[in-house]
């Protein structure tokens, strides 16, 4: 079963980290990645939301900034391939210990085309 772990955090906080503090957080997360290496698939860190634009589909216009104006922003995501939901939660817990603050949202994956090609016999999530 595949899950994404969507990483949410308050950007006011993450953007006040120094380069060293940021690197420290990444190192802590890497330790968890290494421990569960066989369960991790793509890992994506997004640029700050200041780099985001949003295409509003009904108006068909591009606006500046992220879609959701909330305290906590989507800052990245992981794809996990795990035998059970429990393991996904455990990994998320370990990541939370490595990087406290904010939240990890676990979402089961419905469709998964790792190479961007929607073929008939794509692997099942």
């Amino acid at each position, binding site marked *: 079963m595949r899950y994404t772990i969507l990483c949410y955090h*308050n*950007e*006011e*906080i993450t*953007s*006040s*980290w*120094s*380069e060293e*503090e940021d690197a420290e957080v990444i190192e802590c997360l890497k330790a968890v990645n290494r421990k569960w290496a066989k369960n991790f698939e793509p890992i994506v860190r997004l*640029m*700050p*939301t*200041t*780099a985001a*634009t949003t295409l509003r589909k009904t108006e068909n216009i*591009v*606006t*500046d*900034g992220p879609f959701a104006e909330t*305290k906590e922003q989507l800052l990245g995501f992981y794809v996990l391939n795990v035998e059970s939901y429990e393991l996904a939660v455990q990994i998320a817990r370990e990541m939370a210990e490595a990087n*406290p*603050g904010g939240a990890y949202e676990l979402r089961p994956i419905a469709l998964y085309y790792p190479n961007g090609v929607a073929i008939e016999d794509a692997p099942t999530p």
Partner: protein
Amino acid sequence: MPQPPEPDWIEARLVGARPQAVAALLRYFRDLDLAEEAFQEACLRALKSWPKNGPPRDAASWLIMVGRNAAIDHKRKQARLTALPDEEAISDREDTEPDIAERLDAADYRDDILRLLFVCCHPDLPATQQIALALRIVSGLPVPRIAAAFLVGDRAMEQRITRAKARIAQADIPFETPGPIERSERFSVVSAMIYLVFNEGYTDANPKSERAKLCDEAIRLARLMLRLFPAEAEMMGLLALLLLQHSRQKARFDEAGAPILLEDQDRSLWNQRQIAEAFAMIDKAMLHRQPGPYQIQAAIAAMHARAERPEETNWAGIDELYQALERHAPSPVVTLNRSVAIWKLHGAEAALEMIAPLAEPLEGYFYFHGVRGNLLEQLGRNREARDAFGRAIALANTPAEAAHIRQHLDQLEVAPPPPGRAP
């Protein structure tokens, strides 16, 4: 049960919430000192309460409410000089998440923070005081760190900030919600201040020094502004410009701290993550079709960032962008910078001709004499080059700049005079 937060994370939250909280407190109290004291008090209470109760979901609102209540209590106590503090005044009402905070109008925050920054840029204040004040009030840097960044003593910096605050207290702070024209004026003043903060740090060779960290602080402030006003193309341009300049930090100085020229830098040391973010900002800004000086400067810096090797630099493109900049924001410094592109495109003679009229307006400008010396050296006019470098040294802003020019002078000493000229 939630884990009690670690002190480090409380600290990070306090730093993150600071601009918003101090800005809102300034709106309530209309007094910088009071706003700052109220914020300090709220932080002290947060350090006591959050480890026990867990951090509030909205740290800024919590700090605003607690800071406001604490300051009001304090005022009340002062009003009743002889009376004992009563139970009510020392109640621990801050331990519950203030629900009034939910009703604070989020839209106010944007203008609050803009106002807070704008207040720090009061035109009566010299630039150095503006920066010091913004770093103290908005970024919350402790005085010793600001003092270290400006290479002055703690006491001198403390006095500088106190004087700046006193000056602002006498001035009228505009508290009504700004109209579109005022807002855009505030924007350009604040942008200029952020750029000054960056430049203050830019010349420092040691990336670990307090001074060099001002670059990170400037980028943080630009991001903050952009989160509040996401559709400001010039703020996108400013952020892109700062990121591009900052991306070269590790390549810009040698081990002795002497500056390395752009064409001699090891480009593999350029920070590709910052460059990529800057490119994304420029792409976004272009959609607005409202070019301005920061966007053009960012586009020029991007031309350099795109060239994997110095000889791949698109000098014709850079020349065009400088011409555009001369139209948007004419200044002798812009023309001086353009002359470097002219040098690459048409040779030193043409560049020298171009900067000749700048001699008077840029008489006291280090880079003018540096560029002129370089051009003269290239043309073999060594005696004039030596004069120009001599003036540059006298005007150098840092010992490293002076040392760099001295190197040129040393080369001139050992270089044989060009044939056919008197030494």
